[in-house]
């Protein structure tokens, strides 16, 4: 018959092993889910951040903050909505809550054509890049909520999904989307 103290130590060791191995397995599972989300939605994250950023540094900040918030929140994602809708929620929330860094005596680099050449595929023609640049510039001029609604609409999300993520009614989403499109049309015709 084992001594009580030996039994206690054995039980403690088995609990510790379960805790360590369990945690390691959980960590691996979270990493796997994050990598899957990253591979599938990396472009989406970049596109949203580009619509909100004014400078290169802001774009990189927003992108990294979005990835970090996705990583921190992935354990709590229960799959109530689709993965892309959840990613939209996290990235849009990151962008609207972003506080610009204040670099004393230093101006951040504005987003320009050279940045677009680095960001997009080498196969993209200059004319194509110029159209993208104009599109992102027009979108970034919209207020945050209208911009968020438009971005989800551009990605073929249903009005109900957009309403849930943004926190408005379906009718309000429709009316704000129309307002955003009218504003874009006005800005686009002004630029010609």
């Amino acid at each position, binding site marked *: 018959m084992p001594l009580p103290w030996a039994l206690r130590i054995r039980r403690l060791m088995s609990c510790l092993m379960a805790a360590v191995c369990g945690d390691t397995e959980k960590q691996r599972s979270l990493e796997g889910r994050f990598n899957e989300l990253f591979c599938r939605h990396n472009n989406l994250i970049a596109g949203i951040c580009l619509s909100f950023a004014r400078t290169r540094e802001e774009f990189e900040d927003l992108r990294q903050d979005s990835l*970090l918030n996705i990583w921190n929140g992935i354990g709590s994602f229960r799959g109530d909505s689709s993965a892309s809708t*959840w990613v939209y929620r996290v990235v849009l929330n*990151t962008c609207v809550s972003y506080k610009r860094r204040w670099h004393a005596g230093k101006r951040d680099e504005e987003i320009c054509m050279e940045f677009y050449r680095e960001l997009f*595929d080498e196969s993209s023609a200059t004319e194509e890049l110029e159209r993208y640049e104009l*599109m992102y510039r027009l979108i970034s001029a919209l207020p945050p909520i209208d911009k968020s609604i438009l971005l989800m609409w*551009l990605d073929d999300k249903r009005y109900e999904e957009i309403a849930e993520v943004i926190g408005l009614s379906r009718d309000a989403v429709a009316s704000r989307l129309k307002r955003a499109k009218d504003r874009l049309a006005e800005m686009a015709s002004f630029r*010609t």
Partner: protein
Amino acid sequence: MEMNIDEMKPQWQSAQKSIKPGQRLDSKRRTSLQRLADRYRRFAWLALLMIPLNLPTLYRLQSLWLGLGFALIMAAASIMDFYLLERITSTDLTRMPVRDVLFRIMDCRKKHMTFVFLAIPCVFLWIFALVYLYRPDEYFVIGVLSGGSIGLLIGSRVLYQFLRDYREALDE
């Protein structure tokens, strides 16, 4: 170059496919909200610590009202920072709707600036009382006025930055 709004959807989707993969996650960094929370936490504790750390100096001033005034201003600043810290840290970006997050952040900024606008006259009043009490000592007065001017310059720049950010989000 012209932009037709009807063409925007296929253009957006085409742009998404053409973006190159970016850098991987840098897990050691802090997000913008985490940095803001860290700043509120730091200043909340700093303001609280200023009260006991300055007790010997306040005792030497030999004015109960100046000592009480200083303690009240610091305590109010600390409470405000702890309140804003709680609001920021309870913002769940993974669950809350976008509109709620935006309004909460703007509400925090509004409360922050309201407090600053209320606290500045109190601080000026306190400095004026201090200068009045020590007016025979000209070096002390020059020191207080110099420090106050530098603080005013730095504060004005921060205020300008804040008002610029606030004005853009107010478009909602």
